[in-house]
């Protein structure tokens, strides 16, 4: 009892409602995706508003865009009287002009650029270190008979169960004693220690997948263990290393609690800094939005470009275990 196209009758009979169901599914998912985007788009838009526009009631969707938010983000200003401002020479740059329109004079750069750089340095530094140590350790656990291997692996995993604030108390005391408070080195070590457990766990899964025969062939050919590791295993781990590095970088980039509690000036990263960009009478929303946009943009770019690596890493734990 088949239809003309050879499929069983039941299949073609349900094809039409199925197509309708798929269209409805698509509509629902697209709607959810659009709703998800609204807050992000709003922040992007707010970055280009003037401070009065950003707190207008009702919220303005149509407004005159300005770069005031970005200027406020990157500069420190002081309020002066109109006479003083007029007594200075004409404004030299476009951002000077913007500031003077609000009776402010630019006194120098703000701390945002420095904080952003700290995020970059500490982020990449700790990622590199975590992936380096993690790759070695993953190889070690995968290929060698290590005493208490399962216990060690579990111990590594359990380090992720402490609330960060709890870990922060003794680290704070320890760093104070060692002079690592508010230093980039201290933060890099800390983030590396937090990331390395995830790195080892992820990378071990990747190494486990690589057949031992390749290294063993290399060793028979006269290479030592380390040489076999570098020449044979490492290249095959590239995808795994990339996925792991992305997660480590995202953690370090987004970290807030430790940065808040352990740094204040020198080594402070962007996340504790952005919420306290104060303007006149409260938070300077366009500047906060500008800072938020600049800080989140790399993440969003990464997510879109490296989507497949991310998806692989996220679902990895579920499938491997």
């Amino acid at each position: 009892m088949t239809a003309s196209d050879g499929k069983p009758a039941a299949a073609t009979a349900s094809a039409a409602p199925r197509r309708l169901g798929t269209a409805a599914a698509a509509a629902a998912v697209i709607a959810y995706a659009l709703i998800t985007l609204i807050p992000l788009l709003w922040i992007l838009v707010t970055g280009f508003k003037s401070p009065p526009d950003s707190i207008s009631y009702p919220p303005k969707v149509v407004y005159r865009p300005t770069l005031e938010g970005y200027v406020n983000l990157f500069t420190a200003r002081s309020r002066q009287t109109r006479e003083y401002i007029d007594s200075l020479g004409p404004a030299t740059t476009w951002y000077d002009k913007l500031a003077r329109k609000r009776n402010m004079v630019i006194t120098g750069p703000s701390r945002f650029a420095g904080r952003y750089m700290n995020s970059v340095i500490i982020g990449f530094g700790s990622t590199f270190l975590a992936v380096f140590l993690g790759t070695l350790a993953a190889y070690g656990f995968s290929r060698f008979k290590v005493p208490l291997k399962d216990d060690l692996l579990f111990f590594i995993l359990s380090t992720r169960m402490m609330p960060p604030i709890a870990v922060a108390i003794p680290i704070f005391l320890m760093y104070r004693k060692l002079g690592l408070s508010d230093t980039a080195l201290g933060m890099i070590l800390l983030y590396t220690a937090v990331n390395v457990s995830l790195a080892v766990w992820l990378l071990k899964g990747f190494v486990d997948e690589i057949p031992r025969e390749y290294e063993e062939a290399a060793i028979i050919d006269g290479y030592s263990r380390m040489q076999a590791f570098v020449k044979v295993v490492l290249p095959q781990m590239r995808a795994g290393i990339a996925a792991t590095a992305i997660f480590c970088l995202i953690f370090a980039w987004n970290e807030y609690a430790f940065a808040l509690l352990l740094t204040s000036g020198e080594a402070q990263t962007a996340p504790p800094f952005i919420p306290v960009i104060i303007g006149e009478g409260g938070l300077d929303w366009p500047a906060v939005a500008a800072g938020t946009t600049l800080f989140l943009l790399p993440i969003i770019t990464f997510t879109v470009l490296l989507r497949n690596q991310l998806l692989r890493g996220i679902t990895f734990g579920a499938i491997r275990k």
Partner: protein
Amino acid sequence: MASTTPQALPAAQGFRKRVSMLSDRAVAWLCIGPTIALLLAINIFPLLWTIYLSFTNYRANQPGREIKWVGLKNYKRILGSEDIWGYMQTTASFVCTTMIIQTALGLGLALLINRNFRGHGFCTTVILIPMMLTPAVVGTFWTYIYQPQTGIFSYIVNFFAEVGPLDMIGSVDLAPWAIVIVDTWMWTPYIMLLCLAGLRSIPPYLYEAAEIDRANAWQKFRYITLPRIMPFLMLAVLFRGMENVKMFDMVVELTSGGPGSVTELASINLKREAFEKWKTGYSSAFAVILFVTVFGLGSIYVKALNRVKS
């Protein structure tokens, strides 16, 4: 085998030779050693120190003061404190509410996306983005969105239903929902992704066999889909649940635990006691209790998960 080692300095060459000549055992320890050392220094040693401090009356802002051993006094005070039980309850209800909503939403989205309509990959990427953002920064800008008069959340809700300006953050009734909504916005994609991975691992012939047996959609879901994605779903809930018990960044920036202490989660209170009131010994005890709670709940859950997997 032609050697491709470049002509290095004799000292470097010697070192390289020595490293490459190491026995397997030495290589193993060389690989694992640094990682273990780092974890001991920055994870284990501080944990042990915290446990020690929890039995003292140490205050970090008075380092010179003599440290007195007080035994279980801190623990007794915490376990007997109504406030602490209140914070644990707030945390528990936060975790339960978010897990229920995100499981329903995430599973639903995964089922819909699994139909592979045109553009589903693009939609997946878009929905994925909030998950990768900085929680603290997300908390800050949702403060802006939640402003009663000037924020778009209230504006949009009023567009559909005239309820007057919604003070999400300042209202005792709405603030818990404020943090639940933001957490859902951020983390539903995580559950969705794991469910999707689970759905994609189900071989299609199972469904075809069921169709031949004239199973309807609900039966297919209940007997094929659900059991197959259960391990993935449970794993997702385990990870997210654990993370939400430790939740700090986003809520601190969004509500600071307020109004009053309506959204004061355990971690937020811990930070207050440890780094604002400087009751180091007391907060160390609280930290230990929290760790044991997370660890304990996690272990129970993992056992259940393993049973489901077998």
